[in-house]
Structures are given as structure tokens and as C-alpha cells.
């Protein structure tokens, strides 16, 4: 309850784009906190507190308040889906693209950074410091060289060993072959022609 005035203040200061975003995708921390409160209290007063404080604060000014509340209530029941990450449809087994592309993710992160609400955003690779963290984690490793990873390589690379072995054996047998060839009249009686 004590954080509510802060959120009201935030909501009035935030640009429309961020507000729309938070209205549609309330911060997971807030919704989780609410769902936990609901499970603990399991009483109507908890539900009467609007899901995201931001949405409620804006809804007080908006005439269409009930239209906002209904999706937020539905969101509290459903598992949270990060709009910045692809989701798998388990019915079809196919992957759905993120709601926001990387360019729009970066836009929103930059905007949120400007207004100091980056912490409320769901996880995205565009978050400040995220790229550097990955760089440190992965270092300068070459893809395909880690544990359990294999490099397929080109066909000539995969067959190179066998071909070199064959060539080596052929060269080892070459003096004897030339000797046979000379004995058989320089190819007159030769039977084994290559295909």
C-alpha cells in the first residue's frame, strides 16, 4: 500500500508508450506479488486492489476503467508470458515470435531507462548490462567447440582423413605396382584397369 503513491506519480510522468506497455504487460513482480497475496488471503478485498498499481492509477483518470481491469484479472490467472521472448505453442509444437521485435525492445528499454523504470520491464537481451554479462559468460569461445558440441565441417574436411590414408597406402604399394607393370610388358598384359 505504501508503494502505491509512488506508482501513481510514475504513471503520470511516464510517456504513453510505456504506460500502454505496462497496461498490457504488467510487471511480473507486481502480478506475482498480487497472486501470492490472493492465495494467502483468498479474500475479495485483495482482488479489489487492481492488479497492477499503474493500471489502476491510470484507470482512475480513464473513463473506460472496467475494460482495463478485465484483462489484468485474466492475466493474474494465466502464467506470465514475456512479450520480449519467443513462446512455444505446445499444441502445435511451433515457436511463436516475441510480441516485440528486437528493435522495439531496444526502443522500450531506452525509454524506460530514461524514466527510471527499467527494473519493471520483463527480461530482454536489450536490458542494460545484459550484453556485457553474456560476453563475460561466454568469453571468446568459438561456437561448436564446447562440451557436447560438434562441428560438422565441409564434406572435404570430413573425408580428408580417409582419402589421405588411401593415398598413403597407394604410394606404399606403388614401387611393387610399377615393377609388375614393367614385367607385364608395360601394360600389355595388364588386367586391372581402373573404373
Amino acid at each position, binding site marked *: 500500500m505504501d508503494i502505491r503513491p509512488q506508482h501513481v506519480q510514475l504513471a503520470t510522468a511516464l510517456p504513453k508508450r510505456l504506460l500502454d506497455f505496462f497496461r498490457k504487460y504488467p510487471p511480473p513482480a507486481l502480478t506475482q506479488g498480487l497472486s501470492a497475496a490472493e492465495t494467502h488471503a483468498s479474500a475479495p478485498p485483495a482482488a479489489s486492489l487492481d492488479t497492477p498499481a499503474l493500471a489502476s492509477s491510470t484507470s482512475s483518470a480513464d473513463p473506460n476503467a472496467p475494460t482495463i481491469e478485465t484483462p489484468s484479472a485474466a492475466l493474474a490467472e494465466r502464467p506470465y508470458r514475456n512479450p520480449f521472448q519467443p513462446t512455444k505453442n505446445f499444441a502445435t509444437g511451433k515457436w511463436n515470435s516475441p510480441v516485440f521485435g528486437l528493435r522495439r525492445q531496444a526502443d522500450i528499454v531506452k525509454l524506460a531507462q530514461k524514466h527510471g523504470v527499467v527494473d519493471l520491464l520483463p527480461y530482454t537481451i536489450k536490458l542494460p548490462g545484459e550484453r556485457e554479462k553474456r560476453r563475460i559468460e561466454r568469453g571468446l569461445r568459438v561456437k561448436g567447440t564446447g562440451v557436447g558440441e560438434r562441428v560438422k565441417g565441409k564434406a572435404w574436411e570430413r573425408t580428408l582423413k580417409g*582419402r589421405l590414408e*588411401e*593415398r598413403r*597406402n*597407394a*604410394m606404399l604399394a*606403388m614401387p611393387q*605396382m*610399377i615393377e609388375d*607393370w614393367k614385367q607385364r610388358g*608395360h*601394360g*600389355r598384359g*595388364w588386367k586391372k*584397369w*581402373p*573404373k
Partner: protein
Amino acid sequence: MAKKAKSRTVMVRLLSMAMTGYFRSMMRPRQHRPLSMLKYDPIVRKKVLFLEQKRGGK
């Protein structure tokens, strides 16, 4: 229609027996026996035996 007369000579391919895939193309009389000779193979950098490849039916 009469078939086209066969030429007196044929182009043949002499394969390196060093199994390098290197080959030389030569012309020989059709009735001549298959060619075979010692030639330089640049891949193994040696003189090796080259034998005529059997010509497949087209």
C-alpha cells in the same frame, strides 16, 4: 538414317594410381590397346603409374 561414322581416334583419361584423383587426357587410336605410362603426379610430387580409365557406356 545411317549412324554417324565413329572417329578413328578416341580421347581417353589416364588416372594416377596414387589415388590422388589427378588425371591426364590423351588421344589414342580406337583400335590401340589401353594406354599406361609413368608420369609425374604433382599432388604426391612423384612419378607414378597412370592407367587408362575404363570408358563407361553412355
